[in-house]
């Protein structure tokens, strides 16, 4: 079995209301020197099989078709 982590983040320039709210909350809690915060998602996925190339191609396909909204998001893959 292959374990993979897909990380999906917002493209530059796309408004991130969540990140903005967290910046505000962190400074409200007294944390100093916090610059931009951007929020994204991770998916930890288990895949049957051992062929890492196939897994990677498969994961890419999953990202394009479901996991990432490529209009506004980028994604990266990491295999265990």
């Amino acid at each position, binding site marked *: 079995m292959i374990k993979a982590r897909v990380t999906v983040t917002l493209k530059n320039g796309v408004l991130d209301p969540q990140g903005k*709210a*967290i910046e*505000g*909350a962190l400074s*409200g*809690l007294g944390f100093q020197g916090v610059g931009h915060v951007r*929020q994204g998602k991770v998916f930890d996925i288990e895949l049957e099989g051992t062929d890492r190339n196939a897994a990677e191609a498969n994961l890419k396909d999953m990202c394009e078709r479901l996991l990432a909204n490529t209009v506004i998001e980028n994604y990266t893959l990491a295999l265990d």
Partner: protein
Amino acid sequence: MKSAVVQLPGLNRDRDMIDALTKISGQAPVTVWQTETSIPDVDLIVIPGGFSYGDYLRCGAIAARMPVMQAIRDKAEKGVKVLGVCNGFQILVETGLLPGALMRNTSLRFVCKEVLLEVVNADTAFTRAYEEGQVIRCPVAHHDGNYFVDEETLASMQDNRQIVFRYAAGTNPNGSLSDIAGVINTAGNVLGMMPHPENLIEAAHGGLDGRGIFASALDVIVA
């Protein structure tokens, strides 16, 4: 009996709640803004529903860390009644005043409909107006009402009769563990619930089933 309604940016059922409290007790609640660090002397503090701070990060997470919540915690420790509805419940859970966590609905969708609630414990300051086992109607409207708690805590909550409302008759709208819709703290003065009793308190709402909660908490005789 006097009441207070907490107003945080992004809450949006504060006006509904103020209206309900006013209509039921005949007295308008005072309002408390996010930056306030002390709360006037009241018998009941209500945190209404909505999307405080956008519910970004996690529902209620940012609200739970605002100064006003410390003031509410102090009051709660002194025995003042605190009611959190919907986002208010999520906030109470995030502050740790109530156990558990409220996660995304299993449908992953916002759900707005009327459900049935079983009054599991009618022996609380918020449910005295009802009978044990009574089933009442109540609207729900939320995206994250899926209550979760670990088994050990659940067992002790059951022992302490902390589960106050359950979704009845297969109406669980969110996948909540054990059909839990509302829970109370061990001291019995802090109640959190996902459904919106404030939207079912007058003829125009099509029913009065929600009145009992406010009537109990405010010591008003229910009509």
